């Protein structure tokens, strides 16, 4: 068990180093190009704005929080702050998968409407790559009809003949039960 964890840690570090290199290597970007970190979820590649990624870490035990939706796996201690962890498979109503050595938590900075930001983690099957995508290469998500909720998708991009779904994390992690409840008024 311990060695498996170590392997995982090593693997995660290697991956991080690779990613870092690819980010550094592509630092000279035009204004019309964005970088996306992509990850795998049920065989499909999803992308998030790389500037929002705080860190990538291996899956570790969480503290469950009662009376929260099932996709909120719990909270973890990230260097002294309490960070909620969301399972994206459950969030997207996908089949659940046993967490394996490639399962990682991507820690993201999520902006709320009122200029405040929150730190949240998402559990995904594995990180994939970093791509540079020109803004005009991102296509709007087609309307899937009523059966599919496409509101979390901000666009579709084609990279190396593959489709990458670009996620709108602000929308995704602020909706429904994750919405920040307004603080109790001061009674003034």
């Amino acid at each position, binding site marked *: 068990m311990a060695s498996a964890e170590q392997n995982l840690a090593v693997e995660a570090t290697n991956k991080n180093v690779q990613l870092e290199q690819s980010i550094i290597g592509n630092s000279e970007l035009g204004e019309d190009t964005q970088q996306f970190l992509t990850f795998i979820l049920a065989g499909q590649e999803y992308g998030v704005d790389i500037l929002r990624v705080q860190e990538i870490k291996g899956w570790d*035990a*969480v*503290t*469950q*929080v*009662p*009376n*929260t939706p*099932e996709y909120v796996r*719990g*909270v*973890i*201690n990230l260097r*002294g*702050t*309490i*960070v*909620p962890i969301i399972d994206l498979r459950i969030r997207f109503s996908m089949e*659940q998968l046993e967490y394996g050595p490639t399962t990682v938590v991507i820690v993201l900075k999520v902006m709320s409407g009122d200029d405040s930001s*929150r*730190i*949240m983690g998402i559990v995904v099957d594995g990180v994939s790559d970093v791509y540079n995508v020109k803004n005009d290469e991102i296509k709007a998500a087609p309307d899937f009809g009523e059966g599919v909720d496409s509101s979390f998708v901000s666009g579709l991009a084609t990279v190396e003949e593959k489709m990458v779904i670009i996620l709108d994390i602000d929308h995704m992690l602020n909706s429904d039960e*994750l*919405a*920040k*409840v307004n*603080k*109790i*008024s*001061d*009674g*003034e």
Partner: protein
Amino acid sequence: MTFDMSQFLVTFYEESFEGLDIMETELLALDVGEADLETINTIFRAAHSIKGGSGTFGLNDVATFTHVMETLLDEMRDGKRDVTQEGVNILLESVDVLREMLSTLQAEEELDVERIAIVKQKLDNLLAGDSTEAASPIVEEQPSVAENNITDTQTMDTSTAGSSGWVINFKPHVGMLQTGNDPVRMFRELSTLGDFSAELDTSNLPEFLLMEPENSALSWVLTLKGDIPKSEIEEVFDWVEDDCDLTITAITSSFPADEEIAEAEIISETEEPKPIKEVPVETPIPQAADSATSEKPEAKAKRKVTTEASSIRVSIDKVDELINMVGELVITQSMLSQLGEEEEFGEEHLEKLKNGLMQLERNTREMQENVMRIRMLPISFVFQRFPRLVHDLSGKLDKKIELVLSGESTELDKTVMEKIGDPLVHLVRNSLDHGIESPEVRLAAGKPETGEIHLNAFHEGGNIVIEITDDGAGLNLEKILSKAKSSGIVGENDKLVDEDIADLIFRPGFSTADVVSDVSGRGVGMDVVRRNIRALGGTVDVKTKAGEGSVFTIRLPLTLAILDGQSIVVGDEVYIVPLVAIVESIQVDTSLVNGITGQAEVYRLRDEYIPIVKLCDIFNVKPLHDNMEDGLLVVVEAEGKKVALLVDDLLGQQQVVIKSLETNFKSIEGISGATILGDGTVALILDVTGLITISKQNTKAGNSKTPTSVAA
């Protein structure tokens, strides 16, 4: 000015607000008729500091206003003027206005010019009017007052009228250069304001042989073109004000009219000042507000953030104590590191190591306590606003009320203090308004005419307790009950004890005045009071006796940052229960567990029946033990109600640092926060009040909801 003054602004505001508080307190303590000279002196000094500071920072409105107050106080101090109730009231009002001015300036908002003008007018009237001594000293004062008015009006006019520029006659006194002021520097600064030209007058220049290079003999006529507020020009000359002859005149087309008004003001000020002041004031306000707000909204937003950073004053004793402790800590550390360098580690070293670690633990704990104490301030900071409140309100309500304060030196956390102010004001206002009866009613009831409100604070356990006691009529329980029944909050046949009925006033449904009649209208916003106090992790309850009065008791944690907790185990999870909430922990004796209609269970503890709350059900956690007798019951109490929490095991007691769940997530019912345990994992802190509420809801719902399972 070439260096950045803004860094001192924060301190200026802080000190000014403190000064205002002092002025207020002392004014209230002032005996009308025979005023204590020292008291007036204190007020005067506070006003004087504010005036001085505001002048330096170019807050001319504040300086002008304070100047008038100061003049009035000066006359009182010199015995030229009697201290009248009217005078004190106007001064109190001025303190309010000043506070408003300063806080609006601090927030970079527009001043309420109208209000300022009205109060200033009152002050002026008082000054111009019935002084005890004949005209001579006042006449001297008069021009300065009038002058200030001119500055005032001109500033306002020119900031809006779009004047084309200014002509400045600048004639330095002989010694100005010796004070280190350089006209060239000032001119350079002026030239940044607009189109600048200077005309040099050398007529006073002595012959070359007679010339003293350190004396200034030159004078200038400066022209500055552009739409510039006069205050900005004055600011440039701030430092040389007393060392030169300076006149600043506008070159606008409207200038002659302006001068007429100003002249008229000087003349009529002595006789009948009222109408004149209003003429120049009223028209420019809206424009001033408009132009300024539209001009730089960005700068405003930025500024607000910086002013929010508050500071705290710490007594030197506390700091010294901390320094001592750090010293001890260093000694312990060096002792331990010496041990670490020992080549061979024997039995006696182990003993030393243990001692060292114990010492380290004690040092750390003491340090922590003391660092926490830095944030602690005496509650008098909150209490001191009440004499004024009671003074004002009792006058308005025609009631005679004496306010007694005790325990003012009780300390509590600054954050808690900031947030407890409003709920307290609300409660005191309620006691004044609805608790204390009018003098006639009191006399008829055989009570002393003057009612008493007692504010008391003290420590109890790990809590601070604040009591608000009044000797008024008490709550009208019957009326509350009947209203509660008619509005459906309470069922027709429910049996309620008196405490429960009194507690109804904290229900949201009771938050409007018309729910309970105006005879005893308590409950206005009481739900807000309770909610705010709960948000601080505290409780509030009320005890009342008809005809004798009521006591509101607020219990608050001493600090929001640290908590003494008991770790408990439920299933695989560790939770923290605040130690103050725990009454006792017992092993389950199943013979004492009784079911109530198959839905809820109660535990008979001595002569009490206590509802059992199964944490595993509420939190959807699979318990370690299936049988209840293998678990433990933790009896907890909040707001006078007890419940027994069924847990799997108890771990140790420890101090935990409270972390917010809301920062990155949201608040969860029954959970007040989270903390990080020694091994780095997160444990949730239980909110006992919230748990009691949840357990009640569950019982009401008849436990019909089977808990939805969570994938582990």
